[in-house]
């Protein structure tokens, strides 16, 4: 007998709010999180703006925040999100021993988490001092001298993408199955999906699952700018993320963390935890096409969507809403629309689709779980979040993208999709919990 898997807690730290309700209110109001970049001086970069998490104070969430003071931005964001989610689910944090009655060996962690930034000043200084331009080679002795003097062990260690999961273990005492993955923009959707599978097949009773990422740093923005993946609408950051619009010109880089508490129905009932939604389907695929482009016929996306529907035992007409990957890049929004048409056939035009990235930006590894949380809220409040900035519809994209304002709707069953750079596609199905 497979276990049913439900959500019993949620937490978020993102550009439009440091808690779930604030994020939701801002999303429904279409209040963008984008603005001129302040984390570093991006003044001459092709893209000078992003969606930053601002005025975030870890000590507002974590009592012993000095334990985590070296944490990278992702680690610090994910601690705040985890505290919120655990509080809602009735899981003790920062208590040893905990009094919530939960067996820590049956409570695990699965994050889709990104790497931390390099230590920029010393990183670049060491190259400047070490590089011999005449001979095009590195003087390693010189490089090493600068690097050794300037780099600090913890700052270096915190660049590793598995550190956020380590911080959560320390915060919660979770000792169950633990993993961290990084499949680019699909990472936290994949983390939630695999965590669901762990509970379904008895490996854990509770999983703290989600994502954390910040790539708003010089090398991160450089990488995306070189790929021409980012919007360069520098004169209007707040309208730059415009998924499915004819004038879309790239995504808006955001940052943040999102966590859901996944739990077997049995465990949730035993503990008397309030159930927020049920996750009933997960589908995962690999494009196996090109690392630079999505498959032209949306092969991988279609396969993942179909696998998720099959896993959930539902048909396309039972899906009330699709929370899209909707990045605002030319390619994604076209291919994603094609994939929806191929899977949903005549139901495609009748199924509302929207992209929260139009408001909070693209949180990269953390984005899938952040968007999953908006799906739970859509079911809770019977309202669909809008795709903002959709004033110039792309004639080739003719589905219902819930443009510019939220919409009341009957929402029982939702599909959440995420597609990663390189071709990893992950899709979840969730629905209102019915006993």
């Amino acid at each position, binding site marked *: 007998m497979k276990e049913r898997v439900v959500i019993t807690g949620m937490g978020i730290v993102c550009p439009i709010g440091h808690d779930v309700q604030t994020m939701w209110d801002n999303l429904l109001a279409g209040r963008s999180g984008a603005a001129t970049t302040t984390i570093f001086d991006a*003044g*001459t970069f092709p893209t000078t703006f992003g969606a930053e998490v601002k005025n975030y104070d870890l000590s507002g969430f974590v009592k012993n925040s000095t334990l985590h003071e070296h944490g990278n931005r992702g680690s610090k964001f994910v601690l705040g999100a985890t505290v919120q989610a655990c509080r809602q689910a009735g899981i003790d944090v920062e208590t040893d021993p905990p009094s919530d009655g939960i067996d820590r*060996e049956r409570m695990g*962690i699965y994050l889709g*988490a990104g790497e931390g930034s390099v230590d920029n000043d010393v990183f*670049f*200084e060491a190259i*400047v001092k*070490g*590089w011999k331009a005449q001979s*095009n080679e*590195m003087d*390693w002795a010189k*490089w*090493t001298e600068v690097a*050794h003097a300037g*780099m600090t*062990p913890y700052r*270096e*260690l915190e660049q*590793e993408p598995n*550190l956020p*999961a*380590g911080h959560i*273990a*320390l915060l919660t*005492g*979770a*000792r169950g*199955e*633990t*993993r*961290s*993955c*990084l*499949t680019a923009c699909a990472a936290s959707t994949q983390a939630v999906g*695999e965590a669901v599978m*762990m509970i379904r*097949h*008895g*490996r854990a009773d509770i999983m703290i699952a989600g994502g954390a990422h910040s790539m708003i740093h*010089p090398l991160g923005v*450089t*990488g995306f*700018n*070189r*790929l021409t993946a980012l919007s360069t609408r520098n004169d209007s950051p707040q309208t730059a993320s415009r998924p499915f619009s004819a004038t879309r010109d790239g995504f808006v880089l955001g940052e943040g963390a999102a966590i859901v508490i996944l739990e077997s129905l049995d465990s949730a009932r035993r503990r008397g935890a309030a159930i927020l939604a049920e996750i009933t389907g997960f589908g*995962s*695929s*690999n494009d*196996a096409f090109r*690392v*630079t482009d999505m498959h032209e016929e949306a092969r*991988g996306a279609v*396969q993942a969507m179909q*696998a998720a529907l099959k896993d959930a035992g539902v048909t396309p007409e039972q899906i009330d809403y699709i929370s899209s990957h909707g990045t605002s890049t030319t390619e994604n929004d076209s291919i994603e629309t094609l994939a929806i048409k191929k899977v949903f056939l005549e139901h495609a035009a009748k199924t509302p689709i929207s992209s929260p990235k139009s408001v909070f930006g693209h949180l990269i590894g953390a984005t899938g779980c952040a968007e999953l949380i908006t799906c739970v809220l859509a079911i809770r409040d019977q309202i669909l979040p809008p795709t903002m900035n959709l004033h110039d519809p792309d004639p080739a994209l003719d589905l219902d993208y819930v443009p510019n304002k939220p919409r009341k709707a009957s929402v029982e069953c939702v599909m959440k999709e995420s597609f*990663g*750079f*390189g071709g*990893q596609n992950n899709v979840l199905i969730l629905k209102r919990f019915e006993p």
Partner: protein
Amino acid sequence: MKGRRVVITGCGAITPLGMNVPETWQALLAGRCGIDTIKAFDPAGFSCQLAGEVGPYKFRDYLPKSYRKASKLMSRDIELSIIASDEALKDAGVTTQAFDPDHITLRPERTAIQFGAGLISCDLVELAPSVAVSITDGKFDIHKWGKAGMENLTPIWLLKYLPNMPACHVGIIHDIRGPSNSITCGEVGGHLAIAEAADIVARGDAEMALAGGCEAKVNPIVMIRQCLLKRSTSVSNENPEGACRPFAADAAGSVFGEAAGVVVLEEFESAQKRNARIYAEILGTGSSTNINPAYEHLEPDGKGIEIAIKKALAEAGITPDDLDLIIPQGTGIPQDDAAEAAAIARAMGDMVESIPAWPIKSMVSHTGAAAGALDVIAALEALSESKIGPVRNCDIKAEGCRLNLRHQGQERTIRSALCCGYTFGGQTAAIVLKKLEGYA
């Protein structure tokens, strides 16, 4: 495992000890060491100047003609994973589109790919010319970087360093379209990728999976990080072959290296049906986490490892009496070795002194995300050939270490083997493998 039975039918590796599994295995049996002074860059200023480096290889030989142009998108980690995958699939007797497009036996949508990958550090020599045009008064100038510096960099620069790229490229080369994940759990990523792939096959989401890990740690940034964290040995630069000394009284730190290891997992019935050679069955896996604010080290009692081992044994439905081999992480970092040995001792009870333990990093070096895959491959060969190599560089055991570490190689029946591992950052893992009589 719950669900379908999962077996391993192919192995591939490229390591400091050899360009493939047979060479690596023979070196391990002979107790040879692949650690030497770093050649990839001049390590003179480093406290540890040693590494396990892979010998020269002709990468083009491993790429189908139609995909050779993509080699400019590949970091060394990706190259190593492609080479090891090529061997693993051939060893399993699977024909992919890369081998013979007219006789493909791999089923693309029913095959998964899960790799453990490290934080792929950028190539400083590639980046330096861009930095060099971004200097004002001898200092890095981000305004210049945002224009001239950035423009100097290849447009696809980022794609070389995303940790999911090894699985992406291998998936493209062999047309693998099932579930795909990249486990970024530092030095236990290889173990965990294999464990997750086993779950995917067991639950029926794929009938075959390519799984393992790759990491090219011989990069100045990665190496200096280990020096700063005092995880690498600083006392043995004149004696590379004696440098890495897992569980030894005179251990002084680890030596890092580069490798890839890949195995082919398969549903038992489908392997039987095609008369595949079966190395072993994956009987159980487990993972947990170490809780220690000093993220670079294990907690002193190694409890996270003990939990992972106990879970894996419980799932396997066996007890320590059934084990004939343990391949521990055994890094040569004294406090971590002590914690790991203590955890294994508690999980094994009195059996700890009789089950042979065989740490291999004294020979192959610590290859990060590849390490778990190499451990599993060593265990598979040991199960198949009923042989264990010598424990190298552990002349006198560290005080309190109860592991059974033998200086001499031995021939003995090995029914089941345990591989366990851990990483900085906390995650731990264990995998139990069992020999299937009559299928080797």
